[in-house]
């Protein structure tokens, strides 16, 4: 059984409370960091650990932290990105719900390392009950002297505030999140300047995902080198994978990076195989934005070696035959799934969530949705398939933020690997019209 670092104590009754969390060894990393380490030493441990952003981009966290402008004399901010909205992803909700003090402890250490005295947790508007859980955890930590003024008599002050979004996928993008936190529409900003130089209220700001900040706790406990001993190559440590779709055991699993994909899908410890004894057809392994892969390419890379759950192995083969680890939103499709319908569905999502700032994304996502709708509903034309490829190409790389890419990749990859399904739809409109939710009537 894989060793758990983040969720080691998840099954302890009452782990949501300060007392049980503390008894299980909680807040010892915060004590160690604040009492015996300098901020630079903490940043260095995080660099050594090889921790990469767990929200989807996979950018080295220590490096991101080292960009924080500490010379400007302006206040600095840390924003914890809890705007989890990527379809297929529900790991941060799980972590905050079950073990909120792990996040609070991670925030205390990270804020100290970054020289931050005010930290905001930006929670998506739909997770209102999570706001209650976090506020309770913050109150408890404050009562015990881990938050507020002069924490543990070290002279370090920190306030953590929970902020609520209101239903907008785009606010998961860091600069849109900053805009939203300033009380505006969630329109992403042009970079540079990067938030580390000019972020919230024009001040140096770091935005990190919930899981990333929680992972700082074990890194301090076991040291950067100890953390880096887990995983494989540049994919160090563990990752929370939220598994969903047509599997026997959907849920949130902590895996050591490097676990074979096949084991993750079929072992009883994780997904427990495909539901109803069906065959595996395809997987989107990192949240709806990353390329979809057919079963064969998902289990083995082109050379025949097993594909692993790691940043590098999942990306092997580039966009021709690879995909991405992304947020770890692992969506499994069985043999009955209609790839055309699924692609239309996801494109509708991106069209709905486009902020409307950049024309390629604002218009392109709508066009793709319309074209996919007509193919799915038996009104498609042969040239529509090429039209989709062309629109996707024109969106990719031509927008301020990555939502454009995120909308283009699912379409491009679905056509790359499942072109025959699109062609079948176009060539057999009479059959397609009779299909209702995947069943021929």
């Amino acid at each position, binding site marked *: 059984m894989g060793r758990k670092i983040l969720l080691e104590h998840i099954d302890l009754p009452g782990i949501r409370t300060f007392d049980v969390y503390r008894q299980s060894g909680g807040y010892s990393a915060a004590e160690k960091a604040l009492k015996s380490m300098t901020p630079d030493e903490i940043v260095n441990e995080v660099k050594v650990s090889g921790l990469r952003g767990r929200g989807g981009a996979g950018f080295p966290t220590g490096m991101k932290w080292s960009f924080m402008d500490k010379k400007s004399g302006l*206040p600095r901010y840390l924003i914890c990105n809890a705007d*989890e*909205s*990527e*379809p*297929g*992803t*529900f790991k941060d*909700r799980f972590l905050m719900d079950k073990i909120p003090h792990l996040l609070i402890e991670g925030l205390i250490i990270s804020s100290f390392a970054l020289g931050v005295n*005010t930290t905001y947790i930006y929670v*998506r*508007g*739909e*997770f*209102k*009950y999570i*706001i*209650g859980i976090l*506020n309770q955890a913050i109150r408890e930590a404050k009562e015990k002297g881990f938050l507020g003024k002069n924490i543990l008599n070290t002279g370090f002050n920190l*306030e953590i*505030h929970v*902020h*609520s*979004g*209101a*239903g*907008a*996928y785009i606010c998961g993008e860091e600069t849109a999140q900053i805009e*939203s*936190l*300033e*009380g*505006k*529409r*969630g329109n992403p900003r042009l970079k540079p300047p990067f938030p580390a130089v000019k972020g919230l*209220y024009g001040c140096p700001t770091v935005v990190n995902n919930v899981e990333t900040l929680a992972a700082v706790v074990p890194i301090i406990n076991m040291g950067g080198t100890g953390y880096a001993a887990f995983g494989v190559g540049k994919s160090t440590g563990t990752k929370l994978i*939220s*598994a*969903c*779709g*047509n599997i026997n055991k*959907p*849920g*949130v699993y902590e895996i050591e990076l490097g676990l074979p994909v096949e084991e993750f899908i079929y072992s009883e410890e994780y997904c427990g195989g495909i539901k109803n004894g069906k065959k595996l057809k395809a997987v989107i392994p990192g949240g*709806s934005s990353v390329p979809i892969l057919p079963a064969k390419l998902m289990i083995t890379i082109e050379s025949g070696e097993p594909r692993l759950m790691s940043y590098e192995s999942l990306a092997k083969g580039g966009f021709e035959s690879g995909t991405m680890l992304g947020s770890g*939103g692992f*969506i499994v*499709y069985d043999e009955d*799934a209609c790839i055309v*319908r*699924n692609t239309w*569905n*996801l494109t*509708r*999502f991106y069209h*709905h*969530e486009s*902020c*409307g700032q950049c024309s390629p994304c604002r218009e392109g996502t709508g066009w793709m949705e319309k074209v996919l709708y007509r193919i799915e509903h038996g009104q498609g034309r042969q040239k529509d398939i090429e039209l989709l490829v062309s629109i996707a190409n024109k969106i990719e790389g031509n927008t301020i933020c990555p939502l454009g890419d995120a909308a283009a990749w699912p379409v491009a990859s679905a056509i790359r690997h499942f072109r025959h399904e699109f062609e079948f739809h176009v060539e057999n409109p009479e059959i397609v019209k009779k299909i209702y*939710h995947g069943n021929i009537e």
Partner: protein
Amino acid sequence: MNSKIDHKQYKKENREIVFSPVLLEKAKRIIARYPGGKEKSALLPLLHIAQEEFDGYLSVDVMDYIAQLLNIQPIEVYEVATFYSQYYLEPVGKYVIEVCHTGPCAICGGEKISEYLQKKLGIKNGETTIDKLFTLKEVECLGACGYAPVMQVNTEFYENLDEKKIDNILEDLRQKANVNKANESKWAEKFF
């Protein structure tokens, strides 16, 4: 995203738009979370509270009140209220049922759940029942894909749905609606 403000909903009839002293105190505490001069940051949380307080939707006079509270221009409130999908600009039922119909929920039967709700309530997506109890909305990913199909009713999540569960949930909500309003705790008071 919501796209328009219906000016017919400009004013709420017979309703004075002002926070109670308790809510006003709450609003002040929320505003104090942000640095001096950055009070506008409190806009999203305050709109949530105002929406819950004033019949579940944001009429223009409610938005104007929030603008006044934060000392910002009304347009700064309108542009935000029209951007985020959780702010409703038109009257809604006591219970807003948001059914997820995005990818992972869809392959686990989310679309059928939505159809069943439409049949059961006798309304289409986006409509409100005549008794003003239920509004039905198909929404994009609620972030609970492992427990699909899911829906959210006001702040409550309901997961692994099937037709029987829906029958029970609707029945429970109907009964809850009859309970004395004074006993109801508002989520803004509970969570913020």
